[in-house]
């Protein structure tokens, strides 16, 4: 028995040693930063590691600022950010890997087709509570929001709410899909979700007269969108570069599109 335990200890030790990038030939890269970008990069990293078993991609959260600092300090190979770089973050190169665009959606039977950013803010703040104030029939608005901590909610709050809190009358659902189900079933509902997940059962509103299409997002004309960035230092090793190429390549971009983001290249309008 004791001998057996020894052997498994040794095996574990060897395994750990290999994980540290020893002579086993395993390369490890670390990506750190925005928790909004995190789930997407984690997903990409899994796919990348499946195709390249000799590479380990280590993805960590911590927020945009912490991630960029880690890259500047050399603690991370790549950073993730959901905001533009500050002037103090010089020497870094930001690469947009996709756009996180948010569609404000209603039931297909809703007569309202366009709202201004201010109207949307008033609705979600609970200041406007009836569709008649927005050009629709007399009917109370059912506001559908996301849970605290959701990246989509965070983006919506930053892009639309301008510091106003979301009304406590809002229904709260815990996924894009659940918001879609509620809006698809309720003619009085208005909600928001990732643009890539809008389907025929709901209708996306134009915001400030601009319809949400991938083209409008990429042209910067649709305002409820923010770029997701991967940030690299001036000197980037070959392995992080290969990962970046994978993310920007057709496979990486179509994976991001499947997850509801607007890809920056090559996969066409959605």
């Amino acid at each position, binding site marked *: 028995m004791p001998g057996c335990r020894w052997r498994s200890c040794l095996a574990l030790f060897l395994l750990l040693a290999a994980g540290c990038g020893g002579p086993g030939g395993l390369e490890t890269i670390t990506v750190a930063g925005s*928790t909004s970008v995190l789930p997407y990069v984690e997903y990409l990293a899994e796919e990348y590691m499946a195709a390249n078993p000799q590479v380990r991609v280590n993805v960590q959260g911590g927020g945009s600022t912490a991630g960029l600092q880690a890259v500047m300090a050399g603690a991370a190979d790549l950073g993730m950010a959901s905001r533009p770089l500050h002037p103090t973050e010089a020497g870094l190169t930001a690469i947009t890997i996709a756009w996180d665009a948010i569609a404000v959606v209603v039931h297909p039977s809703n007569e309202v087709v366009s709202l201004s950013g201010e109207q949307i803010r008033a609705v979600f703040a609970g200041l406007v509570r009836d569709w008649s104030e927005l050009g629709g029939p007399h009917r109370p608005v059912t506001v559908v929001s996301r*849970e*605290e*901590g*959701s990246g989509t909610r965070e983006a919506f709050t930053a892009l639309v709410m301008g510091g106003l809190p979301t009304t406590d009358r809002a*229904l709260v*659902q*815990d996924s894009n899909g659940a918001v879609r189900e509620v809006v698809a079933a309720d003619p009085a509902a208005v909600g928001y979700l990732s643009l890539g997940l809008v389907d025929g059962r709901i209708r996306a509103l134009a915001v400030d007269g601009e319809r949400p299409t991938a083209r409008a997002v990429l042209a910067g004309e649709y305002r409820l969108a923010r770029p997701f960035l991967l940030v690299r230092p001036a000197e980037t090793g070959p392995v992080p570069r290969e990962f970046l190429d994978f993310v920007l390549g057709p496979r990486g971009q179509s994976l991001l599109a499947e997850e509801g983001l607007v890809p920056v290249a090559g996969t066409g309008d959605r």
Partner: protein
Amino acid sequence: MAALRLAALSTLLALVLIAIFILAEGLPLILHEGPARFILGRRWAPGDGDYGIGNLLAGTAWVTAGALLIGVPLGLSIAVFLCEVAPPPLAPFLKPAVELLAAIPSVVYGFVGLVTLVPLIRTHLGGPGFSVLACSLVLGVMILPTIASVTYDSLRAVPSAYREGSLALGAARWQTITRVLIPAARPGILAGIILGTGRALGETMAVLMVAGNALRAPTSPLDPVRTLTGNIALEMGYAAGEHRQALFATGVVLFLVIFSVNVVARALVRGPSGAR
């Protein structure tokens, strides 16, 4: 024997470890916020550092009361019917059918509620459909088998001398049920109701799906509602730091509520007629 004792102790150990873990994670935030502010506070906005679960407590109370309002009369009636009224060939089919209700996973209850009750309430009664009423109906059916089968068993346990004596004295069957059998079975019936209450307080998935989870405290059965359990399940995905602690703190309060319900239950069950 030693192995059996160990198995039994492991249950206790699991309970103690869970309690310690929840308290260790949640208590610091409660103490930091102040228990009164945490429990009575009406604003829950983790983004702004506001952690008040007053509205969520109210939500849990509404939903549980609604579930009992539906589940208790139905459960009692079913048990009395099965035990005292049902013609002999019927009971052997009905009892397992009622008990089968308990075998349906809660997510199925939630889903059925979502696709049937919510639209029905929205079109016929108004409001968004996601409501206290939808939760109460779903939960009422969910706690039905617990209440019915515990009540059934305690009615069966009443000595037949009581039944026969009452009938021999000239009491009608209905009088026998309401004046003799139910009072005699009272501790067991109460235990069943308390078990059902515990289930209603703790149920998460089904409630999450039909409650709407709005943060405002409901003022009518047609208003959406968020419960303590729903709050934890809804926000645990991305909660970090203080927010995560606050969810554990919500768990602490839920734990205390369920614990005190059980203590009250035990006291009630051991009450006057339970002392025999």
